[in-house]
């Protein structure tokens, strides 16, 4: 049944993009819908594109696991748009460039900075795509039992069709539709879930105890895990426990460590404490409910998260490219203002799922797949055909989230890749003809395929981490590289190409290193872990300091066109500047 919902969303998305509107013919159609999208519809599209798997599944999952501190994700994702509105929206639109590398080159007249920015766009885009695809894998397995690699392949295939068929214009329509699908899919079930919760006596997690099963629950473990059991409990196991093969046999699960094998089903009685992965005890109810008490160094972590989300939003490749689809700077601001409303409405919902998930799907703490809580709740709490239907709606919304964010990101990565390839080719063969312009669209589509395939391969080999965590890292990279470039580029006359390049390399490089260490290296504790997984609080100041410092040292290299660029960025369109 849920497979049908997934198929429907994928099919609708693909059909919309192939037949919905005439396919993009010119290069500008491919990039930015020829800048002919109304502010309101553009805002829906931005909402659709921005609300990714991290927002739809990830926040609820993190709240389930860590509690109140994770509420800041939703706040940061919304507030980032206010910062973007205030400092960047209108000037960025007026810059007239298509992508951040375009902006960098136009503002600083430097090919070098352009290339560094292009590399960063591609890396941030792929880092952001990775959890979307893995989230799709988890969703498809949760609802249909398909293998983990199926989800990424399905999403990548649909994204390639979407992107290759029409570029930004068709993507705009599809994404506007997907915003409303996501909001509806999360908002309608919430009403029923809350009613069921009230009917259950409106419980709240037990303050003094670890999470426990409210009803007898069968947990399916797909990948072998080592768990720690606090109190001995009688369970029924079908599969492997430690070294024994069991076939629906009752066993006493003694206190201490156990290994539960692949594809094992464990049935827990009501009231049993949830075993947890070794070394990762979930916080007790009171620590979970309270802010600043579930994790290591929570005050630093909270501020670092806020900095990353507030400043990172403006640097996300798929967010920036959307601003060029507005007809002018004023429209860019109106769009952003509407987006704030759309996001504020949406982010009220995930915490409800997170809190209910803590009560009704605590087994996810044992399997570590907390991102699945949104999908499981209707069936767990309501059951029956109603629960199944709402579950289908939620699954459809989840796929809308994967598809819209993934196609937006793929578009922007493809745009930048295509531009760089184009320049490389143009530099070798000289002038271009109209015939070659047609070839350019074809090359852009090829770049789209490449941009979609690399993260798909990565998603199959990289170890899975909570969706919102990885997305948080992508925000941190963007905040430490593009945020200083955009802010200083728009508001400071003293920025030099050398300063910009040094700042991008220092901030972007440092955060990308922490990403590599956290994703590949062994887990760490204490400060090392917090500084690596939440780098923004030190990397953003570092990037700003390097960018400003080097610019001041190379003051003689301030580009001669700086005043002209700033004039263009800040003059409202209503003022007709005479030609020089």
């Amino acid at each position, binding site marked *: 049944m849920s497979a049908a919902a997934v198929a429907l969303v994928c099919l609708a998305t693909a059909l919309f993009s192939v037949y919905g509107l005439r396919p993009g013919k010119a290069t500008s159609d491919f990039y930015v819908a020829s800048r002919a999208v109304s502010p309101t519809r553009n805002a829906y599209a931005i909402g659709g594109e921005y609300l990714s798997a991290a927002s739809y599944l990830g926040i609820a999952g993190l709240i389930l696991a860590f509690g109140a501190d994770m509420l800041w994700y939703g706040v940061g994702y919304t507030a980032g748009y206010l910062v973007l509105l205030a400092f960047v929206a209108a000037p960025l639109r007026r810059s007239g460039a298509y992508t951040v590398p375009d902006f960098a080159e136009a503002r600083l007249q430097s090919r070098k900075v352009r290339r560094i920015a292009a590399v960063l766009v591609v890396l941030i885009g792929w880092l952001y795509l990775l959890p979307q695809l893995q989230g799709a894998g988890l969703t498809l397995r949760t609802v249909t039992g398909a293998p983990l690699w199926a989800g990424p392949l399905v999403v990548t295939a649909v994204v390639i069709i979407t992107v290759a068929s029409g570029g930004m214009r068709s993507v705009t329509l599809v994404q506007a539709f997907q915003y409303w699908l996501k909001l509806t899919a999360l908002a309608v079930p919430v009403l029923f879930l809350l009613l069921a919760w009230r009917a259950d006596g409106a419980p709240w997690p037990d303050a003094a105890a670890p999470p426990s099963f409210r009803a007898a629950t069968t947990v399916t473990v797909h990948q072998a895990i080592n768990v720690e059991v606090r109190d001995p409990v009688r369970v029924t196991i079908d599969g492997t426990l430690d070294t024994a093969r069991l076939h629906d046999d009752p066993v006493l699960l003694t206190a201490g460590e156990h290994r539960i094998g692949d594809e094992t089903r464990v049935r827990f009685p009501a009231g049993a404490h949830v075993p947890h992965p070794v070394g990762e005890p979930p916080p007790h109810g009171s620590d979970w*409910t*309270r802010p600043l008490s579930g994790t290591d160094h929570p005050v630093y972590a909270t*501020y670092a998260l806020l900095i990353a989300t507030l400043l990172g939003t403006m640097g996300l490749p798929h967010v920036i490219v959307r601003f060029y689809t507005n007809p002018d700077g004023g429209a860019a601001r*109106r769009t952003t203002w509407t987006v*704030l409303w759309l996001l504020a409405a949406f982010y009220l919902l995930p915490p409800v799922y997170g809190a209910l998930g803590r009560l009704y799907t605590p087994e996810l703490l044992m399997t570590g797949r907390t991102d699945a809580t949104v999908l499981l709740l209707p069936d767990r709490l309501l059951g029956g055909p109603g629960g199944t239907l709402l579950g289908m709606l939620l699954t459809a919304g989840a796929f809308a989230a994967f598809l819209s964010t993934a196609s937006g990101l793929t578009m922007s990565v493809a745009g930048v890749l295509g531009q760089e390839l184009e320049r490389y080719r143009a530099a070798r063969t000289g002038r271009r003809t109209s015939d070659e312009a047609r070839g350019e669209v074809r090359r852009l589509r090829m770049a789209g395929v490449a941009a979609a395939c690399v993260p798909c391969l990565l998603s199959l080999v990289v170890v899975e981490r909570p969706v919102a965590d990885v997305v948080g890292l992508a925000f941190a990279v963007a905040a430490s590289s593009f945020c200083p470039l955009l802010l200083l580029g728009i508001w400071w006359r003293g920025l030099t190409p050398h300063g910009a390049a040094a700042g991008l390399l220092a901030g972007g490089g440092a955060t990308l290193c922490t990403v590599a260490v956290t994703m590949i290296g062994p887990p760490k504790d204490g400060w090392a872990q917090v500084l690596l997984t939440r780098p923004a609080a030190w990397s953003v100041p570092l990037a700003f300091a390097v960018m400003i410092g080097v610019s001041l040292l190379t003051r003689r290299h301030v580009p001669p066109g700086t005043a002209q660029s700033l004039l263009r960025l800040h*003059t409202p369109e209503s003022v007709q500047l005479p030609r020089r």
Partner: protein
Amino acid sequence: MPRPVRTTVVHPRTLAARNAQPLPPSAGRIVEDLGRQTPLGDVYLRSLMRSQFRLALAVVGTLSLALGVLPLTFQAFPALRDATAAGIPVPWILTGVAVHPVILVLGWVYHRQSRKNERDFAEAVERP
């Protein structure tokens, strides 16, 4: 040694600036100066950038204060961490719901005020 050129620096919105007939090199509208990037045009551009930047800074500053003060308050007053209202913990209401209206109000203030800044600028530079 060449004599330093005398430049008159005036606030762009004052009457003195608008009426200053002999200001070289353009005797026409400020837009001409802006487009040709004369020192006078630059003064106008700087003034627009300054007003917009101050506005943005005020809005984002208020936002940072409103959000940034919350974790510190929770840290300073542990009793607040455990407080509940209507069965829901107060920190959840504050961070999950109450901050959103603040963000929306700030967005509205910015949107309105930035348009006003730009209108003022356009009026000033297009005055014949």
